[in-house]
């Protein structure tokens, strides 16, 4: 129960500053540019994650030659060069994409399911259950997820550390609370909408109401919180790899960064070692964030960047623009 809902329910919960949605109408014309660009980037990397390991020219353990300890520059045959033990970095990038994205999306999916279950139940049922669930989710929000994960994961046996599902699940545990909060707020609003109230009065079963009346209107928030959780999950997982808490057998982008850091690649200016994974991580994040912003704007068209008419008319509060047109009034059929 945050301050703003206690004091001013109308100001409402937001996920990243988004006001609660009304009945959503999707735009009839084409989606904003953000969605397209973001979507394209995301799809590209998902494809990389799926097909990368198959397309990688070499296995992660392959070495260019066994003796030379000097990393090689990118060349025609080795597009990203090698690290100090002669692993092919391009292959590592492609292969590592799978675990990175897999865990990110897995964590996102699990967290989203958890947040729906907790948030919608909490919002719809109300009462003591709501109080308890709210306190629990607020606790999870307040605790620093990464550190808790380190506490949990560090002492685990090595086999478990390499298991994507376990890691994904654990990451999800630290990130479901954000979505749950937003969903709870939205459920509370929807619960009192006329069409839901009438369904309750008619006597529809609770589960039916939740599934058919409430959840469809929650989909935009669910989508947005899923994306947010994926971004967060990727960040957490990369951080865990970077810190050496987790070491997946097939490598990951975070692991590449870790080995780069340990071997002093930055000081030695071996850009082909640390830059590609860093850029890939950044790009995936950007793609997902653009998607997120785009969805934000679809839900709340007011915050869309206003470009009205050919020349952007400057609207300022208190100074309604006066544009004298010579043409006839525009309402003729």
């Amino acid at each position, binding site marked *: 129960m945050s301050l703003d809902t206690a004091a001013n329910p109308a100001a409402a919960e937001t996920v990243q500053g988004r006001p609660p949605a009304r009945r959503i109408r999707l735009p009839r014309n084409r989606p904003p540019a953000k969605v397209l660009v973001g979507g394209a980037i995301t799809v590209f990397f998902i494809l990389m994650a799926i097909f990368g390991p198959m397309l990688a020219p070499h296995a992660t353990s392959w070495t260019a030659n066994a003796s030379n300890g000097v990393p090689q520059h990118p060349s025609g045959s080795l597009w990203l060069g090698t690290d100090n033990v002669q692993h092919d970095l391009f292959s590592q990038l492609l292969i590592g994409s799978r675990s990175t994205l897999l865990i990110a999306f897995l964590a996102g999916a699990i967290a989203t399911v958890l947040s729906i279950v907790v948030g919608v139940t909490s919002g719809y049922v109300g009462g003591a259950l709501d109080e308890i669930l709210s306190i629990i989710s607020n606790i999870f*929000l*307040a605790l620093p997820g990464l550190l808790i994960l380190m506490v*949990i994961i560090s*002492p*685990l046996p090595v086999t478990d550390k390499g298991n994507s599902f376990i890691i994904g699940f654990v990451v999800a545990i630290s990130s479901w609370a954000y979505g749950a909060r937003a969903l709870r707020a939205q459920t509370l609003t929807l619960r009192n909408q006329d069409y839901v109230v009438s369904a309750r009065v008619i006597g529809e079963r609770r589960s039916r109401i939740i599934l058919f009346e409430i959840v469809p209107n929650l989909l935009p928030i669910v989508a947005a919180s899923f994306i947010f959780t994926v971004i967060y999950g990727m960040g957490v997982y990369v951080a865990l790899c970077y810190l050496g808490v987790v070491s997946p057998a097939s490598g990951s982008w975070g692991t590449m960064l870790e080995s780069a850091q340990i071997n002093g690649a*930055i000081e030695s200016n071996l850009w082909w070692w640390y830059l590609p994974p860093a850029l890939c991580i*950044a790009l995936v994040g950007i793609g997902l*964030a653009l998607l997120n912003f785009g969805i934000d704007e679809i839900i709340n068209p007011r915050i869309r960047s206003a470009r009205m008419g050919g020349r952007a008319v*400057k609207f300022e509060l208190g100074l309604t623009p006066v544009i004298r047109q010579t043409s006839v009034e525009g309402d003729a059929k």
Partner: protein
Amino acid sequence: MPLLLRRIGFYLIAAYAAITLNFFIPHMLPGNPLSALLANLRTQVTPAQLAALSAQYGVGTKQSMLSQYFTYVGHIASGNLGFSSSKQVPVSTVLGGDLPWTIGLIGSATVIAFLLGTLIGIMAGWRRGGVLDAIVPVSAFFQAIPYFVLGLLLLIVFGADLHWLPLGEGYDAQSRTITYVQGFNWPYMSSVLQHWVLPASTVVLASIAGWIVGMRNMMITTMDEDYVLVAAAKGLSRIRVIGIAARNAILPTISNFTLSVSLVVTGAILVEVVFNYPGVGLEMYGAVTSSDYPLIQGILLIVTFAVLAANFLADLAYVALDPRSRKEA
């Protein structure tokens, strides 16, 4: 202030939950990690220290889990966070040296990000359709990159390539020409500042996007309110009208801040690792590398308490700014 009391109550519960979690997690994990942990450490620590650690974790003692738990809580309440196996000193001593650096870094960066971010957000929200609307995709760029990756990129560009700024550390401890004495003297302070720029910039850049976009969106929503139109209708100057809108728009922004505190803190900790900044983050990295579990746990607790304290400060600010929250609706 019934609202504030509720919040304080919540923070106490959360702190208590953190302590409890911290205690039970090692005991709940499969494979009996504690015994393995202590077995590993047998070679590193003296027998006396080993005994102390065993007592701390209740391994080999005859105490029941419950009484171990209460002992543990008692220890935490009195400030005893355990004994660091890698550093051979109490955890609290270790953290005592690290915390000032971390708090200084995160605190200053957050204040800067807040001030700059809200200002830019206000202008972007007021002047819709202007140049500042491009801020949204730019913010997306910075908001989506994990903090430390951003730090890496900055380090690469400004530290390694351009050599404008130092490559790490809190101050130039390895300088061969000057000997730095810690304290309030100018050579030391200027070196600290120099080394502070990049890590702080990273935290600022990564967190400012949230402030900007949040404030912008809230400004747009708030400007639809009637009282803003009334302010314009009153013939008040533009600055005052913006001020009225901003003053109201900032409220949800502050309460959203509480959501993100733990993220900012976590991110900043990672930034420290990138920059070898002598704070809690770097300590954490070392603790992981050397399997210093007590230290890891201690850091978790301290950081949790700090996050809760920051949340509480934000709550105080909110209550101070919104008169409606002082009366239980």
